[in-house]
């Protein structure tokens, strides 16, 4: 209902065959919120994220995006996805295109933006993520951290209202994690609404407005990262935090 909600999830359920991955998930993300989803692998956090841009289709429940309930059978999901940026663990840059072409691709072919305008905007975005000098390079020549920053620029090129990050630093060498996190931090400071699946507790603490701990397809605990990490109310949260911190 309210316009301040960017995305609202009600009683979301999702199964893969016999495996019930998400169980009655409720979550509301407000504009400019930065939310971290944490939990062990298999807890359903990535699936939840993928449900938010309909890469996975829910079995039941509601997803309300910018005040409008999205009916996955009848709604034009491509239109929704244009406003929901996604960054993947394994980057998934387009290897047959240069860095600049990667960033220009969606504005030009999805939004029919004139090429010179798309190019200018792509150059601005690449400058923002610190990769102006790599414009004409193919992705195979980039480091993991550079690839992920290009992927962020590519998603931003569609001027999304919300950005989803699916373990954006998990595939990176440790020394490359920082550059990606600082790009994300900048984005958060500009007021971008973000939902981040991450194992980076430091990042969650520093940047997130609140964190969600998922276990076995359920939300166990929600809270400000500082409180959640330091004084978990639930035993399961505590056990998980002990194992990762």
């Amino acid at each position, binding site marked *: 209902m309210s316009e301040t909600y960017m995305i609202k999830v009600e009683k979301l359920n999702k199964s893969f065959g016999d495996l019930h991955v998400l169980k009655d998930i409720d979550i509301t993300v407000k504009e400019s919120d930065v939310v971290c989803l944490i939990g062990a692998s298999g807890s359903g956090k990535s699936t939840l994220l993928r449900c938010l841009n309909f*890469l996975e289709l829910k079995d039941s429940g509601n997803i309300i995006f910018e005040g409008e309930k999205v009916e996955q059978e009848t709604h034009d999901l491509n239109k929704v996805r*244009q406003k929901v940026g996604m960054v*993947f663990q394994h980057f*998934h840059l387009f*290897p*047959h295109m240069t860095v600049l072409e990667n960033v220009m691709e*969606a504005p030009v072919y*999805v939004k029919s933006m004139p090429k010179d305008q798309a190019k200018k905007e792509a150059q601005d975005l690449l400058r923002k993520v610190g990769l102006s000098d790599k414009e004409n390079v*193919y992705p195979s020549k980039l480091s993991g951290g550079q690839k992920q920053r290009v992927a962020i620029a590519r998603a931003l090129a569609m001027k999304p209202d919300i950005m989803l990050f699916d373990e954006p630093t998990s595939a990176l060498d440790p020394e490359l994690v920082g550059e990606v996190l600082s790009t994300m931090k900048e984005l958060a400071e500009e007021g971008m609404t973000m939902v981040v699946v991450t194992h980076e507790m430091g990042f969650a603490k520093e940047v997130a407005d609140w964190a969600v701990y998922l276990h076995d397809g359920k939300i166990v605990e929600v809270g400000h990262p500082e409180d959640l990490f330091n004084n978990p109310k639930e035993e399961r949260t505590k056990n998980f935090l002990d194992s990762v911190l």
Partner: protein
Amino acid sequence: MDLLTKFIDTYPVFIKGMLLTFQLTVVAVFIAIFIGLFFAFLKISKIKVLEWIADIYIFLVRGTPLVVQIFIFYFGLTALDISQFWSVVLGLAFHNGAYIAEIFRGSIQSIDKGQMEAGRSLGMTAGLAMRRIILPQAFRRAMPPLGNQFIIALKDSSLASFIGMYELFNVATTYGSNEYDYMSYLLIVAVYYLVLVLIFSVLVNMAEKKMASSD
């Protein structure tokens, strides 16, 4: 030296035959690429009926000898007033289309699923992501087996001699029977085929190198 004299004496006719062989092959493979792409899409459509249609087509092609297919196309199509050249071309295209369909299916399915997801996450339709993201990568990956298929088609086109096309192999056997000397002309025609295949292999290699520049 006898062989060399024969080679020099007959080369204008062999060159003509070679051009016809080349024409048959290029036109047939060109059409087969579209047939192959079409049936590859049926195969990956995940719609059972369409998959079956593709399976039946591939089964028919694989299950019968090419020479039989060429004769069926020849007698069937010339009865409809289609020229000898086009009936052979269409027969070869029908045959190669099945193998090329499998080449394309394999190369499309070999592209990481994340590529389609990345495209979709940017708001692309499945069709647009296929055209802009998947196919360019799949074509590149299909180049080596496609080149191979072209060479097979080039050699298979010799079967067109059975319905009287005056292509390379027919030139050789005609000279052979006229002069009671099959062996010389078979050796000569083998050289022509080898040269054709060699030229084509070099071209494919160059194309592959060019396309690989981004890797």
